[in-house]
């Protein structure tokens, strides 16, 4: 027989048959115990009438985590939680997400943030996160595009660290151009591709004869004019 496992942590193997007085299996119980902590944490921030964490709750969470409301790490957290609605975390999202992070307390969550950053930056995840960031901004039903102002902020937030010069120029351009008042998902994903593939600031390998979105063609033209 394996040594007695400590109370809350690992569950002894083949323990599914061991039942306790209330009929639930021990593993379930242990799970529930872990979930309880997560749940309690959830309740701390949740809006009781809504049954989920609302923007106010998120703000409070941020304060407790010592992170700004607009910090990209919150967006990353949302991504990890697979949160569907901007500004809100449901109980299920919270439970699944925190479990995936392997945390069940505020301090652990705080400690997990740097890891989360690293995870997002992994090439396999980054594009997914990037696309998620856009979707997260589609707050209205049937909304397909995001206004320029928000896009600029989002670009700063999401790409600013890795591609600062591109983002700065792009944001400058987006603000002064008049052709587009909103950006759609296709244009958004191509911004990332642009940053990754195109040599900057010389833009040497940009070919307008390829299927780059028109807004990027115009951006490149504007940049080349500025540089000459």
């Amino acid at each position, binding site marked *: 027989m394996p040594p007695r496992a400590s109370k809350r942590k690992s569950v002894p193997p083949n323990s599914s048959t061991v039942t306790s007085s209330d009929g639930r299996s021990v593993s379930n119980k242990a799970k529930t115990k872990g979930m309880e902590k997560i749940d309690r944490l959830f309740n701390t921030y949740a809006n009781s009438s809504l049954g989920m964490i609302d923007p106010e709750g998120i703000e409070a969470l941020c304060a407790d985590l010592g992170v700004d409301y607009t910090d990209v790490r919150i967006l990353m957290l949302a991504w990890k939680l697979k949160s569907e609605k901007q500004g809100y975390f449901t109980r299920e999202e919270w439970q699944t997400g925190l479990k995936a992070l392997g945390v069940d307390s505020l301090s652990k969550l705080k400690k997990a943030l740097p890891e989360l950053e690293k995870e997002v930056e992994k090439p396999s995840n980054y594009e997914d996160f990037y696309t998620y960031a856009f979707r997260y901004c589609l707050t209205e039903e049937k909304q397909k595009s995001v206004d320029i102002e928000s896009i600029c902020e989002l670009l700063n937030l999401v790409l600013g660290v890795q591609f600062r010069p591109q983002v700065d120029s792009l944001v400058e351009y987006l603000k002064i151009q008049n052709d587009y008042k909103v950006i759609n998902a*296709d244009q958004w994903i191509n911004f990332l591709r642009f940053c990754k593939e195109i040599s900057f600031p010389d833009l040497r390998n940009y070919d307008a004869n390829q299927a780059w979105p028109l807004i990027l063609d115009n951006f490149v033209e504007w940049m080349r004019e500025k540089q000459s």
Partner: protein
Amino acid sequence: MESKTIDFERGWDHVYKGIKQLRRILEGLPEPLFTSGEYVMLYSTVYNMCARNPPHNYSQQLYDKYREVLEEYITSTLSPSLRGKRDEFLLRELVKIWVNHKVMVRWLSRFFNYLDRYFVDYRSLPALNEVGMTCFTDLVYREVQTNIKDAAIVLIGKEREGDRIDCSLLKNVLDIFVAVGMGSMERYEDDFEADMLRDTGAYYSRKASSWIEEDSCPEYMLKCEECLKKERDRVFHYLRSSSEVKLIEKVQHELLVTYIDRLLEKEHSGCRALLRDDKADDLSRMYRLYCKIPRGLDPVADIFKQHVTAEGTALVQAIGAASNAPGVQEHVLLRKIIELHCKYMAYVTDCFQNHNLFCNALKDAFKVFCNNTGTDSSSAELLATFCDDILKKGGSEKLSDEAIEETLENAVKLLAYINDRDLFAEFYRKKLARRLLFDRSANDDHERSVLSKLKQQCGEQFTSKMEGMVTDITLSRENHAAFEDYLRSNSAAHPGIDLTVTILTTGFWPSYKPCNLNLPTEMIKCVEVFKGFYETKTKHKKLTWIYSLGTCNLSGMFDQKTIELVVSTHQAAVLMLFNTSDRLSYSEIMDQLNSTHEDLVRLLHSLSCAKYKILSKQPDTKTISRSDYFEFNSKFTNKLRRIKIPLPPVDEKKKIVEDVDKDRRYAIDAAIVRVMKTRKVLGYQQLVSECVEQLSQTFKPDIKAIKKQIEDLITREFLERDEENPNTFKYLA
């Protein structure tokens, strides 16, 4: 024939006697020729020696003897005569001994013929004449082949320099080369032709390098033509026909290909100069010389294209710079472009034999400058105006019918070079509408002829609306007759004014702004009456009245005399206000009429500040302001009894361009969907080029516009970008 065995020595003796006799004949000694009896004897002897069973079968020995005899003959008689001889003498001698050899072989073969019949095949040995040839080759040819080749080439060189040479000698010598090949041209080609070609190349290379310095392009080309002709003659006279292709190619290479750039680019006489100076003959020669050379015409076509483009561009700029009245200038421009087109089309047809390269060069050239008019108006508009000028009354009364037809035909041809064909269609339609509605068309036949030319050039869809317009006019006339009947049978309904209504089918005609003008009561009655009539004909169609297109004849009761005024309906509405009021302010007119400021200013200007002042204006300035007052000018008079008061049309150019742009967006959208629906998955560049192709009949789409529509279709979820390859699109059903 005696069929007895013969002893070899005896038999051979007999044969050998015959051979000696043959040799004496060949030497030219007085020896009688063989009689047929003698010949039969010799043949039989051989036969008897061969048609036996061993050991009396001497076929092998005889075969060997045959060869021996020949070799002996050659070495003792033929070869010696060649030694020490050179050049032409060598050639002559060679031909002579070749002839002798042939005779010897022929006769010997006749004697020994029986060997050819059985022994040769049986032992798979070379036939007798082959043996003969081999002997000659080994003993004579091989020794002298280089010398005769050189001598022959020298002769050819002399001929090139103008000397007369013995062509038949040369031909005979070359026959030897061929014969020695024994069925294949290898000896001729390797032992003679190769060096001959090399020598030819060197010769022409030398000539070309000096000619190209000294001669003008036409002179050089003439020399080339002559040289080529002479070389062809050479082939005909003595070279083998198989040499022709290689020879001509060599000559062409040295004369035409090597120096093509220098020749064409010669400053005062090269291709450009020839075009400039209209040297049709020289250009025809240039075409003839270069059309057989692969890619030879490319530079010529290129220069042609550049020349035409330059001429066209200069023309456009010159006329753009001239500061005549705009309408005249543009008319002149188009006339000149048409002239230019006819001129260079003639070149293509006459000098360049309608060759594809040149047809395309012309097309490309025209496309370049036909689309940059250097004025505010696009070439599409200019062309439409040009046609309008010819087709309207007073436009081309001085020209004959044929001249008009020809001009219109040429004008339509120009349309092929203009990118914005759809823009032309719009302008043309607008002007056609004005011609039809205001009865300004000069000649129905010409109108119809232009439409059919346009249909031929651009397809049915291009002209379907315009044809609809013409039909509408015809139908309206019939309709009018019916309306008159209606009025006659319902005299109470008669509005008291003569009324003609033209019914336009909405889709065919350009779109017109509807207006909410308040009409005078008299006119309202007219409208009502017609509506009543129309409803008896059909209840399904809705009538929208466009008063801006109507005309009205008013009687102006001026002090001096009554003058009939032909005005637009809008102008009439303004004037009739003065039937009830003596003096009206701008704003009063505005209120009563319910017009827009823009329209009203135009209307009042035409009636009070233009040529005929039907209304007097206070203050009497040249422009209309909103504080002006107007009165009926009873003092007005004119020597004519009937005057037309023109109302300058609004500049619809901007609107037309906008409309066309909008149509284009739809067209591009539809084209993309059509292509993607068929292909399902397609790369970006291919998608663009297929769209351009589909739309090419109507206009040349802007690549950016296509890109924009693709993006629009992505947003509307018709297309999506492929995840693996961002340059590929997928159709979402």
